[in-house]
């Protein structure tokens, strides 16, 4: 293929979760023959096992295909996939910065949802050309007219311009490609200008070092060039360039407007910052590209190896993982109860879940996670301010002037039948009602300011169960506000367990404390002595329950002379105990540290 900047199209596909984005991407790859049919796995771009299993896209992924349009010309299409979950908004904005256009997928049976709007705004912020696509038109419950109307009135695009497709059956996929070619502009930039290439993703390969995914915005880069990373200020010799089709295909150079990968024997993952600009050492650009707005994790938790000998392995794994998960933050911390580990910051609970699973699966680690916490702003009496991401590190109450917690503005779209339930839920979660409007004849949009802490504890699950799954939900950080908060400690056998501390809203502390200790009673196995479980605020016990000593566990018979069997049973039992942490002689199972997340479950 001959390079022709005017025949390149760089685009993303954005959608609400489950609206069929990944399936649409698969069809596009099929149609452009990028993938031989025998290699076709469902949802090809979702390369992590975890993604395919859960049916969600977590990591963005880029593919280059060629397409001969009806005008007879051959076009190079660079497709950059994006995640669809609210936790991964940052990843979406990363992919969008490498594109000139976006395909917006809307489910013909669901219509526009809260996330659709959120992603849409991101695309508009990036000045992208939007191609609306209505998917799942093959389903009997599809309501194309309604969805077109919504796209017109709610999003402000021409709904009648939407391409009607079924990604499942492959219907009308060609029209999507034609629309991309005809409406999305070719990339700008000057191929002869000094190089500016945006790093939008990277991953580690044990043979080639760090592999960097780039979009060339200005100039071009060749194998053998000495490149310069403008933010991290490092130089490297380019050893390999290529495009992913999605198989890697080496090329000699990447030219202005193109998307591809770059290897330069980069051994240290810290040298590569996603959002950084690559230029040439000998002919550098004056200014870097705007890059990415720095993402701040909203949720923190402690991650510890259950076997303390695996600390270094965990450290190594976090390093490799954060290489292609720029939003994951981590730093070493120590817990009296759990030993050496890391305090990690996440975009949200799903992100936390995904990181845990990836660490356990891809790096074969057995982990203990502490309950997630938001970042509190603590104003001390001496005038200083602490950003607190670990409840156990809360200063003495006498030193604290006031505490602020992060609030988010949440938009909930719901069929109006569930309005009462949702308002009740938001009230329970300390939400402040801001706005209520009709979205269409049957659906409403509620706007609430809610403490983020309340969102991370069961909000989404409850919302789904209250509305039979019909409500959709999106939120963004609003501001910090003063709240009536206190640290709640948990004492096992009289010893405070730092990893079980949490920060609670004082008026509901008594209730939370009660639930917490009763739940811990069910999670911690009975042992050979009675274990008091107490919740305390400022040293004052607010709730207590006792785990009675085990009275009998012996197996009365010994299977005739078959003592081997007895020994195996005991060894298995011992193995099970190894997964527990011993705190003040009490064996505490891993799930105990997440107890606070599940104390409301029984009410559902």
């Amino acid at each position: 293929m001959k390079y022709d900047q005017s025949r390149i199209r760089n685009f993303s596909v954005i959608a609400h979760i489950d609206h069929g984005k990944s399936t649409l991407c698969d069809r596009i790859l099929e149609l452009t023959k990028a993938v031989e049919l025998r290699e076709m796995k469902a949802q090809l771009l979702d390369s992590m096992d975890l993604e395919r299993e859960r049916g969600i896209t977590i990591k963005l992924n880029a593919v280059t295909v060629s397409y001969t349009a009806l005008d007879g010309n051959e076009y190079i299409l660079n497709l950059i996939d994006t995640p669809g979950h609210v936790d991964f908004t940052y990843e979406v904005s990363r992919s969008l910065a490498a594109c000139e256009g976006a395909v917006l997928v809307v489910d013909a049976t669901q219509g526009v949802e809260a996330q659709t709007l959120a992603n849409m705004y991101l695309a508009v912020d990036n000045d992208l050309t939007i191609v609306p696509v209505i998917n799942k038109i093959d389903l009997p419950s599809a309501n194309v007219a309604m969805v077109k109307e919504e796209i017109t009135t709610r999003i402000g695009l021409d709904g009648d311009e939407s391409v009607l497709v079924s990604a499942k059956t492959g219907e009308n996929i060609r029209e999507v490609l034609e629309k991309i070619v005809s409406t999305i502009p070719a990339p700008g930039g000057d191929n002869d200008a000094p190089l500016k290439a945006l790093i939008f993703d990277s991953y580690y390969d044990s043979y080639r070092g760090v592999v960097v995914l780039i979009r060339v915005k200005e100039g071009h880069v060749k194998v053998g060039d000495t490149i310069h990373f403008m933010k991290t200020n490092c130089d490297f010799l380019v050893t390999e360039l290529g495009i992913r089709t999605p198989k890697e295909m080496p090329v000699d150079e990447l030219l202005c407007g193109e998307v591809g990968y770059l290897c330069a024997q980069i051994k240290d993952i810290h040298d590569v910052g996603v959002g950084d600009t690559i230029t040439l050492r000998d002919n550098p650009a004056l200014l870097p590209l705007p890059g990415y707005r720095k993402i701040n994790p909203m949720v923190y938790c402690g991650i510890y190896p259950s076997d303390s000998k695996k600390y270094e392995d965990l450290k190594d794994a976090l390093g490799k993982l954060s290489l292609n998960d720029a939003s994951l933050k981590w730093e070493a911390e120590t817990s009296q109860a759990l030993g050496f580990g890391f305090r990690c910051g996440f975009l949200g609970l799903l992100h936390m879940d995904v990181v845990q699973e990836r660490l356990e699966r891809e790096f074969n680690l057995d982990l203990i996670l502490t309950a997630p916490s938001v970042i509190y702003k603590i104003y001390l009496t001496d005038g200083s301010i602490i950003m607190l991401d670990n409840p156990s590190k809360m200063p003495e109450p006498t030193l604290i002037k006031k505490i602020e917690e992060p609030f988010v503005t949440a938009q909930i779209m719901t069929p109006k039948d569930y309005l009462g339930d949702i308002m009740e839920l938001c009230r329970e979660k300390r939400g402040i009602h801001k706005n209520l409007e009709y979205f269409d004849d049957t659906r409403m949009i509620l706007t609430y300011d809610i403490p983020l802490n309340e969102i991370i504890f069961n909000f989404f699950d409850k919302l789904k169960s209250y509305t039979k799954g019909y409500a959709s939900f999106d939120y963004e950080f609003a501001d910090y506000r003063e709240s009536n908060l206190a640290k709640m400690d948990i004492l096992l056998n009289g010893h405070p367990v730092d990893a079980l501390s949490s920060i609670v809203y004082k008026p509901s502390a008594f209730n939370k404390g009660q639930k917490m200790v009763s739940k811990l009673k069910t999670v911690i196995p009975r042992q050979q002595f009675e274990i008091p479980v107490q919740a305390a605020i400022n040293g004052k016990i607010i709730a207590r329950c006792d785990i009675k000593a085990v009275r009998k566990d012996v197996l009365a018979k010994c299977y005739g002379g078959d003592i081997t069997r007895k020994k195996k049973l005991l060894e298995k039992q011992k193995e099970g105990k190894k997964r527990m942490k011993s705190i003040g002689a009490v064996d505490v199972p891993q799930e105990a540290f997440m107890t606070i997340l599940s104390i409301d479950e029984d009410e559902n």
Partner: protein
Amino acid sequence: MELIDFSVKSLYVHIPFCKKICPYCDFIKVLENPKFIESYMKELLKDISFFINNDFKFNTIYIGGGTPSILSDGYLEILLSNLSKIKDNNAEFTIECNPESLNENKLKIFKKYKVNRISIGLQTFKKSLLKTLDRDYSIDYFELINLAKKYIKNINVDFIYGLPKQTIEDVKEDLNKFINLDINHVSLYSLQVEKNTEFYNKGIKEISSDKSAKMYNYILKFLEEHGFKRYEVSNFAKPGYESRHNLTYWKNEKYYAIGIGASGYVSNIRYKNSGNLSKYIKGLREKEEEILTLEDERKYYLICNLRLADGFNINEYNAKFNKNFLKDYKDEINFFSSVEAINIENNIVKCTNYGLLTLNLVLEKLL
């Protein structure tokens, strides 16, 4: 039989046949079938001839099952006469019986071949519970035991507690009636619902550990008041009537085992014979073997000896395994002392009553 070790002084013989399959039993057993019994006995006698040919003299021989007492008088004669050739004069010679198949004629045969101990599975006196166990509840246990006593002095009976719907009152009743039997040994087992049993398949659950502890403690107190000593977790005897054969197990001593599904311990090998009847009667002898390191033997030593009320001697342990028990287990000993699970006095380590009741937790920390 490839292993010859003349220091082994105990032999276990398994008779797998039963008239009915008890709903809780997970030992190797098969419904009786004359053809199988004939072939099985032929093979078993071959195994016994190995010991005869090598001139073994055992201190204890134990015939267990299954139900050894369902063998016909003829087979019993052959089995016992052969076994009597490989026991020494003072041997303890035990046969397990069930109440349904035990009769005067069989007792006469036992006596003739110097069987000097019988173990009878009574399980409970209560008729409704016997029905749950699919047992013949019309038998008068008093008559049966009185008859047995005419021939054999040393009698054990087995009871089960923790049966579905069994109350603590039922257990008390069983104990009162047991005392009236006026015998010297009793084993009480709490019901364990094992996989591949009728109880398991029916979804029957074991009673709570608290309830089981309550029953056990009652049993212990009652039997101690009536002159019995608990010498092992589940075994109670009047002085001098402890089962010498079972003590070889608990003291981690060696024993041969013949017959399908039987487990033995010879030299540094623990083995379990295959439970496959058709292979056995074709003359095939398969077994799973565990070759023990010194560390394995040490673990077995603890698992076994701590079940004994008298525990074990630290000097013996230290010498056997080249260890220092008090030093190696300093933290554990402190912990177990604080929760009153073990006692160390005069170089003897033993579990307290609480330690015996929670022996799994004790062993888990020590292994």
